[in-house]
């Protein structure tokens, strides 16, 4: 089915044709050009690890407190674990912003996928990924508010804050779908013999972004698979998102040395 491609010799890359000046930045040496890039890419795994620890473990969000628990159970939780939640949310708000530099490292790879074409997909990916910081950080504020003075806040207020945090982080998924689909769509147009983002990763990225649509049902349920703690809307969707971060980071790190060679070749031609 896919054997035809492997039987032909590797083709010269379109990308090795000289990219647009704003992409190749011909005055810079490779050292200057690729400076900070790997650091930004490394922010992905750092974000993921720290977010799982701070938001997930300390914040008791992995798994979430079930939506069908009573307000008193919620109050009991905050009045017992307030210090963990404070620390967790402070950390989540700090490390949550690392999604931005990680996003930029992907954008820079995407600029090289079709360096002679327009930058719509690249720009959408940058904005969508960067704006993903918003739900991550602002939802943390709600949990942090609840943990700030749980002794004087009423149980229903605490419940409302916890609910609001979850409703925000789950229901703002679409801003993350944009970069996921943009990476996939742009990646699939890569003409390289071995694309910078392999086709399977592109399709996975598109699929993962669209699969978040199940969250649309989340506000209608307090139990079952679609509730915030449900196996589908929590376990499947968050694992899919985490896996996407790992997969894309891996291919960004694989792409950077390849682009160093491509840029060298392109500069030599220029």
């Amino acid at each position, binding site marked *: 089915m896919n054997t035809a491609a492997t039987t032909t010799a590797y083709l010269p890359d379109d990308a090795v044709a000289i990219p647009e000046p704003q992409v190749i930045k011909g005055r810079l040496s490779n050292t200057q050009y690729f400076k900070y890039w790997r650091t930004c890419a490394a922010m992905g795994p750092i974000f993921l690890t720290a977010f799982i620890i701070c938001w997930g473990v300390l914040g008791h969000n992995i798994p979430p407190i079930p939506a069908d628990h009573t307000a008193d159970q919620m109050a009991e939780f905050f009045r017992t674990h307030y210090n963990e939640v404070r620390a967790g949310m402070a950390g989540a708000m700090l490390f949550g912003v690392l999604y931005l530099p990680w996003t930029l490292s992907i954008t820079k790879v995407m600029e090289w996928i079709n360096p002679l074409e327009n930058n719509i997909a690249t720009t959408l990916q940058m904005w969508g990924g960067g704006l993903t910081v918003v739900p991550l950080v602002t939802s943390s504020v709600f949990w942090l508010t609840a943990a700030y003075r749980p002794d004087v806040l009423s149980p229903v207020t605490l419940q409302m804050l916890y609910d609001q945090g979850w409703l925000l982080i789950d229901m703002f998924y679409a801003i993350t779908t944009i970069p996921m689909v943009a990476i996939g769509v742009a990646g699939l147009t890569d003409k390289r013999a071995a694309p910078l983002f392999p086709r399977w990763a592109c399709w996975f990225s598109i699929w993962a972004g669209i699969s978040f649509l199940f969250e649309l049902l989340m506000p209608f349920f307090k139990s079952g698979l679609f509730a915030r703690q449900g196996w589908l809307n929590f376990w499947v969707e968050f694992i899919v998102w985490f896996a996407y971060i790992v997969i894309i980071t891996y291919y960004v790190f694989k792409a950077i040395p390849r682009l160093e060679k*491509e840029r060298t070749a392109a500069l030599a031609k220029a």
Partner: protein
Amino acid sequence: MPHPENDMTQNPPDLATEEAVSILRGRHLPGVLVFIIADMAVFCMLFVGFMVDRMKDVALFNNSAIALDVRFGVANTLILVTSGLFVVLAVNAARAGLRKTTRGWLLLSFLVGAGFGVSKIVEYSIKISSGITMQTNPFYMYYYALTGAHFLHFVGGMIALAVLWVLAGREATVSRNTFNLIESGALYWHMVDLLWLFLFPMLYLLVPR
């Protein structure tokens, strides 16, 4: 396959020929299969979720399922497998480079497929007008969620068929690239069919009638 990073920069950096690029694009196919198999995996989990929750209250699930109209399910199955056949014929025509025939089958597949949408909307409106919604009971929660998720896949497939019909219309013959897109779209459309083949008996037919 071997990793070509080194060769890439050593090769003469001429632009790839159209034909060569097209051959490379032959690898669309395994890619879309990742999308398809991931989707199918989630649907399989949903099947398990439905069956596990069904065990908790078989009577409720059976009493709800018996109220579903099997005729809609049968009609929808016939529509999807027939539309699927036309897509197979479209792929075969595209493989032979017959652009007009390809478009004809794609159009027919779309028109027959549209019947599924009509039938589903009629079925949903009958249910909703008799006050049955997603929150009626756990059975209907699954019924709407599963058929709704499937319906969104169906809509995606219809859009894909329409886009392929347009793309094939822009060319003198069926290019390698368009062929690969048609093949990918066909695989996706068959998945919509396949999922329905399981959804229909699971939702409608497990109950003794």
